[in-house]
């Protein structure tokens, strides 16, 4: 018994370490352009982990994570924009007839503040919406709809307040970060490495969180929220926390996205991207930490691959992929392994275990 556990751990660790090292060394064998793409996918993977924490473990489906991603991304972009303009007004502000930097932009002159706000701001918004809804036991489809409405409303606001946000065009044309030119290959490689490290850290952190007692409480809330109340838990607090945490993670992903892609615009944070994010998790398999990572990377790789090979009809391929997964793999890719494992197990039971016992 003991030794198999050790074996498990070992197998586990080593494989994941190899994966991690493979990702870390990707700059050696991928072109700058491909590396940049992979970095973008990994930023999405970070977001997907957070989303799965919320959906797969706590049972709260948010169709509005794009907005938290976006808030993180905008916080970062606002700093980059100010730095690119060297203290001057961003171009879109002058077009909109503004003469000085609006109050809300002032904190973003400082990179550290911008990075902190990029996490705190989405977290705060999620905290407010979460406490207002979960406290009143608004959950299930009600919450999902509200989360989607939040996206719609905020994106409309982002587009509308174009003197503050750059409107539909979003923010782009950055130059330096901490004075380092952003678009140079070496800088981009650095961003990529940072992304890999953040991904690994969030991956391990979230796995720790959900594998212990805390994770069991989350599963309890997912499968029987009311029952948990009668065990003395306050599910609203837990749900609010996870929602907040996952928003913060999404914000982080957004910042890493902006650094590597160099643009953020409302199209990236709206309803459709928000739904797509849920699809990554569903496709990878919810209720596992690794599933969403696979899902996010795979879907986005497929998206890029298809659209490069078949620019006219790639959307059909992608649609077909989604349909196939939904029809044949309702539990996602990791669900495939679960079934496989269950098969194996029931075969084993048939062979080794006391028959009478297995009948219960």
């Amino acid at each position: 018994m003991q030794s198999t556990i050790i074996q498990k751990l070992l197998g586990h660790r080593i494989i994941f370490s190899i994966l991690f090292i493979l990702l870390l060394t990707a700059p050696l064998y991928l072109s700058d352009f491909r590396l940049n793409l992979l970095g973008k996918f990994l930023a999405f993977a970070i977001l997907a982990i957070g989303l799965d924490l919320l959906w797969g473990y706590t049972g709260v489906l948010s169709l509005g994570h794009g907005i938290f991603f976006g808030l993180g991304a905008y916080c970062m972009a606002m700093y980059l924009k100010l730095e690119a303009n060297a203290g001057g007004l961003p171009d879109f502000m002058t077009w909109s007839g503004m003469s000085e930097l609006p109050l809300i932009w002032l904190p973003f002159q400082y990179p550290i503040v911008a990075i902190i706000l990029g996490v705190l701001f989405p977290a705060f918004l999620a905290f407010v919406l979460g406490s207002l809804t979960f406290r009143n036991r608004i959950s299930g489809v009600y919450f999902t709809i509200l989360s989607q409405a939040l996206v719609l409303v905020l994106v409309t606001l982002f587009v509308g307040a174009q003197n503050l946000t750059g409107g539909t065009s979003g923010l782009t044309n950055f130059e330096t970060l901490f004075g380092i030119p952003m678009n140079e290959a070496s800088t981009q490689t650095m961003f990529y490495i940072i992304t890999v490290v953040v991904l690994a850290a969030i991956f391990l952190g979230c796995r720790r969180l959900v594998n212990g007692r805390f994770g069991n409480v989350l599963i309890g809330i997912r499968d029987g929220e009311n029952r948990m109340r009668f065990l003395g838990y306050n599910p609203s607090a837990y749900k609010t926390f996870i929602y907040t945490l996952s928003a913060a993670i999404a914000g982080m992903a957004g910042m890493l996205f902006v650094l590597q892609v160099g643009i953020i615009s409302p199209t990236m944070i709206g309803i459709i991207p928000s739904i797509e994010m849920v699809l990554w998790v569903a496709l990878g398999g919810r209720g596992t930490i690794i599933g969403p990572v696979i899902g996010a990377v795979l879907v986005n790789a497929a998206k890029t691959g298809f659209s490069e090979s078949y620019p006219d009809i790639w959307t059909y391929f992608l649609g077909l992929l989604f349909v196939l997964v939904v029809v044949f793999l309702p539990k996602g890719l990791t669900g495939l392994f679960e079934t496989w494992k269950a098969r194996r197990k029931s075969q084993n039971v048939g062979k080794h275990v006391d028959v009478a016992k297995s009948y219960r």
Partner: protein
Amino acid sequence: MSENMLTLQKVTVDFSGFKAINELDFQVAPNNVHFVIGPNGAGKTTLLDCICGKSRATSGAILLHGKKDLTKRSEEKIVHQGIARKFQAPSIFHKLTVMENLEIAMKQKKRLFAMMKAKWTKTEKQSIHDMLDLIDLIEEKDELAGTLAHGQKQWLEIAMVLVQEPDIVLLDEPIAGMSKKERDKTGELITKIAEDRAVLIVEHDMDFVKSYADIVTVMHEGQVLFEGSMDEVQNDPKVREVYLGRKVEEDADNTGA
């Protein structure tokens, strides 16, 4: 009054016009096994519901130790006051193992951040182990709870109530679907846990009630019809009329097989 652990004063629960409980006065004394019986629809389950906060009393007060009013508190706060409840249908967590079910149920700090730091202590492990032993699920401790048989699920849920170490235990039909032996064991367990706490049980099985009740309350149409020992209950003509129906003897047969 103050020696009562729990006092219900003129409690009414109104489900849009239908009064499931109507101006009910009711007390639970410590160290007692207190059964509530009555025909279906008499308000027994609703009584438990409003004590533990699942249903809200429309009027009246529920006092703990004669002072704290529970009617406005949230479910989890009531649990923190030492009141634990087992529901009629087993509502354990199917995707968690037996062990994990007990792990999240047991008495501990259940606030968010405390839970994040929670680790197994020796005493916790020991008490869970004892509990598993008691309910005969040691071997199944790493099985998913969903794969347990019906009776085992009931046991697990009773265990989940007990590991909360409550002062007042509310049990809704704890022996439904159990064998004779399991019932006896449940009964013994209930007697044992009542040594230092109050146990309030809703049950149909008259044999069981007869064997373990210290006090029996008969409810009818949302009110207390009669309260006393099982013998007194059985000999009360009002009770016989509304509840037991025609044949008392056959009840014993029905439930005793």
